[in-house]
């Protein structure tokens, strides 16, 4: 049958194709462009709440809404659902018997949907109860020691953690920018207490990117509450897309003076940070890859870049500069798995974690995510 494969040859070919063969760095250009754009127009983020994108979200609608919707689907399938059906073959002649057949089958389907609604309602209640119980069982008690004790039971922890947060409208509990800042600061204290020093925060609209001063203050406040005023950890907030980094606190002092940051930059002293918070948004996903390709195309047109220079390693290097390294663990604080346009290049091998039907940012979820990670075996292809 098939020839036996020259494995070594293939491996060589792969490693050969992964070499970087050019010293150009298009990511600089992309960053500069982004900064220019930022100066030109200051686009306001949309405040229309957490309604993000139109995925077939495995959502938790209220029981009665689902019920109502199903009833409508039963009565008038022809209006909406039927346009998606494959029951009728294309160019099929519609007869009454076929139509009756359709309605009979559709009735059965709706009945099964109905059963599904009951199952979902039951699942929802049981999941919520479980979460309630978990949040009682695992309480961080605003104490790093407690968190540290929990984490030290684990076999391994990730180096880089990423979280996906959702912007909630101001009217809601823990909503608005303030709520978001509070969430980030909570999560960063948990990370810091468990020994994780890289945190990236993904929020679809990029609200936080425009509110760095607020975020900085919130994180500082939370750090003081957890670690005491004498012992505030150093932190830095980064926006890789714009090539910006905002030192948050150095030697226990909150840095708000822009002049001081400039001075720090000029003196060339690099303070050591205990935690690095990276802010990501939708722009870091597909648009960044498109932008990078555009810049590369420009370079290619001028003859500086050849097609054979574009290797996987090269693109990886550029995207690492533009977005960051890939996280080991992505925690989603939302009721269902939805990546919301998270940078695609970066989620290659990341472990994904979410609690079904959970919509709050709780320590229990964070801890369980780490527990899950500690049991995972990472075997690249083997």
């Amino acid at each position, binding site marked *: 049958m098939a020839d036996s494969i020259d494995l070594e040859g293939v491996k060589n070919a792969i490693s050969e194709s992964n070499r970087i063969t050019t010293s150009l760095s298009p990511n600089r250009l992309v960053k500069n462009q982004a900064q220019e754009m930022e100066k030109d127009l200051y686009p306001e983020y949309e405040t229309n709440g957490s309604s993000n994108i139109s995925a*077939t979200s495995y959502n938790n609608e209220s029981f009665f809404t689902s019920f109502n919707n199903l009833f*409508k689907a039963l009565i008038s399938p022809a209006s909406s659902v039927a346009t998606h059906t494959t029951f009728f073959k294309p160019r099929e002649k519609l007869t009454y018997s076929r139509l009756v057949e359709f309605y009979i089958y559709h009735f059965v*389907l709706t009945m099964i949907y109905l059963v599904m609604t009951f199952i979902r309602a039951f699942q929802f209640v049981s999941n919520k109860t479980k979460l309630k119980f978990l949040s009682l069982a695992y309480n961080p008690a605003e104490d790093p020691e407690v968190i540290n004790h929990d984490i030290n039971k684990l076999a391994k922890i990730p180096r880089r953690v990423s979280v996906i947060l959702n912007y909630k409208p101001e009217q809601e509990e823990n909503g608005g920018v303030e709520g978001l800042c509070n969430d980030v600061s909570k999560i960063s204290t948990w990370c810091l207490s468990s020994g994780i020093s890289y945190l990236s925060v993904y929020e679809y609209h990029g609200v936080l990117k425009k509110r760095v001063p607020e975020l900085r203050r919130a994180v500082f406040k939370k750090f003081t509450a957890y670690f005491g005023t004498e012992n505030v950890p150093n932190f830095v907030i980064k926006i890789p897309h714009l090539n910006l980094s905002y030192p948050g606190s150095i030697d226990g002092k909150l840095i708000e003076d822009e002049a001081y940051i400039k001075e720090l930059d000029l003196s060339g002293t690099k303070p050591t940070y205990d935690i690095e918070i990276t802010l990501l948004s939708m722009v870091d996903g597909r648009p960044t890859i498109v932008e990078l390709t555009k810049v590369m195309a420009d370079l290619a047109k001028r003859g500086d870049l050849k097609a054979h220079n*574009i290797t996987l390693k090269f*693109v990886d290097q550029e995207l690492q500069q533009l977005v960051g390294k890939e996280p080991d663990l992505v925690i989603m604080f939302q009721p269902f798995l939805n990546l919301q346009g998270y940078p695609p*290049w970066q989620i290659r091998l990341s472990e994904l974690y979410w609690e079904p039907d959970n919509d709050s940012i709780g320590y229990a979820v964070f801890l369980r995510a780490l527990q899950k990670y500690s049991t995972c075996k990472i075997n690249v292809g*083997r």
Partner: protein
Amino acid sequence: MNILSLLSTTIWNATIHIPGVEYADGLFKDFLVKVLQTGPIPNHISFVMDGNRTFAKNNSLPLKEGHRRGADALLKVIECCINLGINNMTIYAFSIENFNRSKGEVDTIFELLVSKLAYIAEDNQFCKAKKLRVKIIGNRTLIPPKILRDIEDVERKTNEFTEHTLYVAFPYTSRDDITHSVQTIISKVSKGKILPEQVNEKLIEDNFYYEGEAGKVDILVRTSGHTRLSDYMLWQCHQDSVIELCNTLWPEYQFYSTWWTVFKWSYYKTLQIEDAEVMQTKKIGRSEVQKRYKTPVAKLPHPPQVSVTRE
């Protein structure tokens, strides 16, 4: 748990041999397919076939047998999808990282894949009956020449069918796919075929191994309980897609699991469509708007205005 599953398999194997049971099972499956067809059906479904080796280990079978069972399960899943009317299916047959496995295993997988594809593409076989086209997506330069020839033969044989397409990701990783697309675009730019300004999301998608076919992935199924994407379809499913991670091992993922996955999607989709109706978010075209609101608001007639204030 293991004993339980063993017991259920034994019972199932015993009942399936009673005359008539298989027939009844077939009828029931047909019925379920017809039922599901009356609801919304996804356009593109994608599978990561994970768990063949664990299956072999759990059932103390040789490794080769595990892969063979996996290939059998694949046919059943594809058949179910086609019966449901799903047009595009993608399977993750072999990752570029899989070249790191032992030589014996790589040989086994390649041989199985080629022979299975050759079998279904044979005259009057599966592909012809189901009008299924086979297309390889992946880095062809890494496939040994003889195997590549066999596979391209299969592609050529099934090229005439247009209704359903089976995309075989072999050898594939998503990062390689994106790099390939960027590389193609750059080479086109240097040859002057396109301008740098024309680069956009659509263009990148058109230059994937898919060549702009198939559209976005509606459902991505990953079996055997791993909760990561493992460098598969990163671009295609990081937004607007449903990622279904189930604990079943691939050789056990057959008709009923497939049906259940599609059913769940269809359930939520129905709710969503109906919701959209209520919210009036269904998009109406420009021309429709023009037709509905012909007269400007200022020109609408109204009764005389009476007010205490004077103009």
